[in-house]
C-alpha cells in the first residue's frame, strides 16, 4: 500500500503550514456541543421559572382588587383629639347590602380601608368638594374625647372625576336627616350607600349644597355628627393608620426576586463541585391555621371590654391550597450529614367563613407596650359566619424566606437515598391579607398594621432521592409551622400557619 509521504519539500511545507493554522471557534459551537451532551441541564431552570410565573399569576388573580381608590387621611394626635391618617389604595367594595350579596359572595372581598373622623377644627381647613364615584366600604376608626360629642367629618378617599359637574349635595354637619332612605339617593352618583333600617347603627347624613365639584385626588369631607356613634364614656380611642404597599412596589419586589432566582439558576452550570449540590423544588401545600387565643381580663377599670362572659361562637376556617418554590444549596459535611441553605417563596392561605352584616361598630382589645389593654374601634360589615348567607374572607401570606438547616441520610445506595431534613426559615412578608375576629367574637375586622412583617418558620421533612443518569429527583412530604404569630404581640390572639406539602425537587 502506498503510504503518503514520498516527501517532497512542497508537501512537507504544506503540511507544516496547515498544521500551524488555528482558528478560535465561536461560543455557539461549545453551546451546541454542551446542549447535545447534557440535554437535561436546562430543564430545572426552565421548570422553576415556569412554576414561579404560574405562582405569581395565581396570586395576582386571587388578590385582584375589585374597586380602586387612593386617598390619604391625615393622622394627627394631640392632647384632645386623636386623629388618624390612613393610607389605602385598595378598592372599596361595599355597596348596598343587596348589591353586596349578589356581587361579593366570593372569596375576593378585600376591603382594606379606613375612614378617619377628624375634628371640626380640622375640617374647617379643608376645602374639598369632590364627589365620590365609587362605593366605599368603611372601616371607620372613630374618635372622641372628654365626654363631648363633637361634630367631625367623614373623610372619604376619592380618585376620580365626578361625572356630575353640577351642584352636589353633601351631608350637612348640623343637619341630619333621620330618614330610612338610602344615603345614595342623596349623593349625586349614588356611591355611598349606607342603607339601613336600623337608625342607631348606621351613620345618618344630611345634605348641604356645594359648589362645582372639581377633579380631585384628595379627600371628600362629609360632616358627620358624633351623635351617631355611641361610645362608652371615658373611653379613649385611637385612630388607626393603615398604610399598605402599592401594587407597583410589590410587583417590583417580585420582579427583583425573580431576577435573583434566575441569576442563581444561571450560575449553576459553571462548575461541578461534588460537595455542593443545588436543588430546585416546588412544594404544593395545604395550608391550615392554628389559633392560640388569650382572654383579656379586666384590671379594675370598668371601661375596658371584657371577654369573659361573652357568648362563644364556632368560627369556621377552611384550608386552602398553597405553594412553595425555591432553591436549596446543600453542603456536604460528611457522608451522611449536609448543611442546607437557600431561598424560597411561600404562599399560604385559608378562608374565614363570614357573612355580610350592616355596617357595625366593633372593637379589638389590644395590649400596649406595657401590657395594658386598650380597645380599638372599627366599623365592619363582616359577621362571624353564624348566619345563613356565607361569604369567604381569605387570609393569606406571601413570604420570601431563607432556610437554614441540616439534612441527614438515614439509608441509601447508589440509586436511592432516604434523608430527613430540618430547617429554620426566617421570612419576610411580601404581601398579606388578614381578617381578625373581634373581641366579642361576632365580627371580622381587617387591620394590616397588626400583622407581623418578619417571621420564623420551622420545616421538617423526609425525602427520597432517586439518582438518574444526569439528574436526581427528590420527593417527600414535609410540614412547615409558623413559629411566631401572624400578628404582632399587641393582638392577643395568636395565629400560626401550618403547611402540609409534598416536596418535588431536581438536582444534579
Amino acid at each position, binding site marked *: *500500500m*502506498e*503510504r*503518503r*509521504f514520498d516527501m517532497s519539500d*512542497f*508537501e512537507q*511545507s*504544506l*503540511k507544516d*503550514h*496547515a*498544521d*500551524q*493554522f*488555528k*482558528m*478560535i*471557534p*465561536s461560543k*455557539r*459551537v*461549545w453551546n*451546541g*456541543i*454542551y446542549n*447535545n*451532551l*447534557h440535554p437535561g441541564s436546562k430543564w430545572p431552570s426552565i421548570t422553576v421559572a415556569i412554576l414561579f410565573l404560574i405562582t405569581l399569576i395565581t396570586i395576582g388573580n386571587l388578590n385582584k382588587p375589585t374597586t380602586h381608590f387612593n386617598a390619604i387621611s391625615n393622622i394627627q394626635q394631640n392632647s384632645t383629639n386623636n386623629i388618624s391618617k390612613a393610607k389605602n389604595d385598595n378598592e372599596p367594595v361595599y355597596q348596598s347590602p343587596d348589591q353586596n350579596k349578589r356581587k361579593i359572595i366570593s372569596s375576593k372581598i378585600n376591603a382594606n380601608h379606613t375612614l378617619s373622623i377628624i375634628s371640626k377644627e380640622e375640617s374647617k381647613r379643608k376645602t374639598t368638594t369632590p364627589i365620590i364615584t365609587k362605593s366605599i366600604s368603611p372601616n371607620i376608626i372613630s374618635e372622641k374625647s372628654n365626654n363631648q360629642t363633637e361634630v367631625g367629618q367623614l373623610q372619604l378617599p376619592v380618585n376620580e372625576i365626578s361625572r356630575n359637574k353640577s351642584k352636589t349635595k353633601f351631608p350637612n354637619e348640623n343637619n341630619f336627616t333621620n330618614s330610612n332612605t338610602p344615603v345614595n339617593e342623596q349623593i349625586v352618583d349614588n356611591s355611598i350607600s349606607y342603607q339601613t333600617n336600623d337608625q342607631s347603627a348606621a351613620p345618618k347624613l344630611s345634605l348641604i349644597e356645594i359648589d362645582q365639584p372639581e377633579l380631585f385626588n384628595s379627600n371628600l369631607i362629609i360632616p358627620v355628627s358624633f351623635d351617631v356613634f355611641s361610645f362608652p364614656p371615658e373611653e379613649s380611642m385611637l385612630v388607626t393608620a393603615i398604610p399598605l404597599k402599592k401594587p407597583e412596589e410589590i410587583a417590583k419586589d417580585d420582579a427583583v426576586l425573580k431576577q435573583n432566582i434566575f441569576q442563581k439558576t444561571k450560575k449553576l*452550570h459553571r*462548575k*461541578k463541585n461534588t460537595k455542593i449540590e443545588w436543588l430546585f423544588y416546588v412544594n404544593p401545600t395545604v395550608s391550615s391555621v392554628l389559633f392560640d387565643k388569650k382572654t383579656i381580663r379586666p384590671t379594675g377599670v370598668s371601661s375596658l371590654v371584657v371577654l369573659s362572659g361573652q357568648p362563644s361562637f364556632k368560627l369556621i376556617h377552611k384550608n386552602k391550597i398553597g405553594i412553595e418554590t425555591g432553591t436549596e444549596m446543600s453542603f456536604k459535611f460528611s457522608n451522611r450529614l449536609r448543611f442546607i441553605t437557600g431561598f424560597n417563596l411561600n404562599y399560604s392561605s385559608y378562608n374565614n367563613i363570614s357573612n355580610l352584616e350592616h355596617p357595625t361598630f366593633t372593637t379589638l382589645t389590644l395590649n400596649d407596650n406595657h401590657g395594658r389593654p386598650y380597645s380599638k374601634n372599627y366599623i365592619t360589615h363582616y359577621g362571624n359566619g353564624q348566619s345563613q348567607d356565607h361569604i369567604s374572607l381569605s387570609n393569606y401570606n406571601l413570604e420570601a424566606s431563607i432556610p437554614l438547616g441540616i439534612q441527614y441520610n438515614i439509608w441509601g445506595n447508589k440509586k436511592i437515598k432516604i434523608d430527613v431534613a430540618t430547617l429554620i426559615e426566617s421570612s419576610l412578608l411580601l404581601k398579606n391579607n388578614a381578617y381578625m375576629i373581634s373581641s366579642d367574637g361576632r365580627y371580622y375586622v381587617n387591620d394590616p398594621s397588626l400583622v407581623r412583617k418578619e417571621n420564623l418558620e420551622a420545616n421538617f421533612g423526609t425525602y427520597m432521592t432517586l439518582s438518574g443518569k*444526569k439528574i436526581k429527583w427528590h420527593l417527600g412530604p414535609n410540614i412547615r409551622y409558623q413559629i411566631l404569630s401572624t400578628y404582632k404581640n399587641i393582638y392577643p390572639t395568636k395565629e400560626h400557619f401550618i403547611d402540609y406539602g409534598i416536596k418535588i425537587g431536581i438536582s444534579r
Partner: protein
Amino acid sequence: MLQGCLDNLSIAQEALYNRFSPRMLGVCYRYARNREDAEDMLQEGFIKVYSQIYQFKGSGALEGWIRKIIVHTCINILKKNKKFSDSVDLIHASSIQISENNIPSMLQAKQVVECIRLLPIGYRTVLNLYAIEGFSHKEISTILEVEESTSRSQYTRARALLEEILIKKKILQKPKEKVRMVSAK
C-alpha cells in the same frame, strides 16, 4: 481530563474542547466552504469525539485520534451535502482566476490555507487527505468512494494548481524546471 470525559463531566469536556478546538477548526476550515460550515463540522466532530471517547485506548496521541474523527466527520458532511458532485470528476482548474485579489494578505500559514481553499472542493479534499492528513490513495478512494486512479490524478492536478497559486502569491518560489500545468481539456 480523559477520565473526566469518560465520566461525562462537563468541566473535563470543556477543557478538552478548549485545548484542541482551535487546531481542529483549522482542519475543518480547509474542507469547508466558509467559516460557518467549518464550525458546524467542528461541532459535529466533537460530539462524535465525546460519544466515542471510550474507544480511545491510549496508544498514540489524543490529538491525532481526535483529528482523525474530525476529518472523517468533514468528509461525511461533504458527501452528505453532495459537495463533490460537480468537482471530483470535473476539472475546472483552468477556470480559476488567480490574482492577488483572491488571496488576502495574512500570516503565511493562513495564506497557505486560503490558497488551498481556492481550489475546487474535490481537488482540495484529495490534497488535504493525501498531503496533509497522510492518507494513502487507496484509503482516499475508500473514503471518497472513487477509483484509486482518480484520486491520484486529482491529487496531481490539485498540487499543480496549488503550486501555481502559491507562486503567484509569492509564497512559493518558482522552481527552475517548468511546472507541469494541467490542461482543463
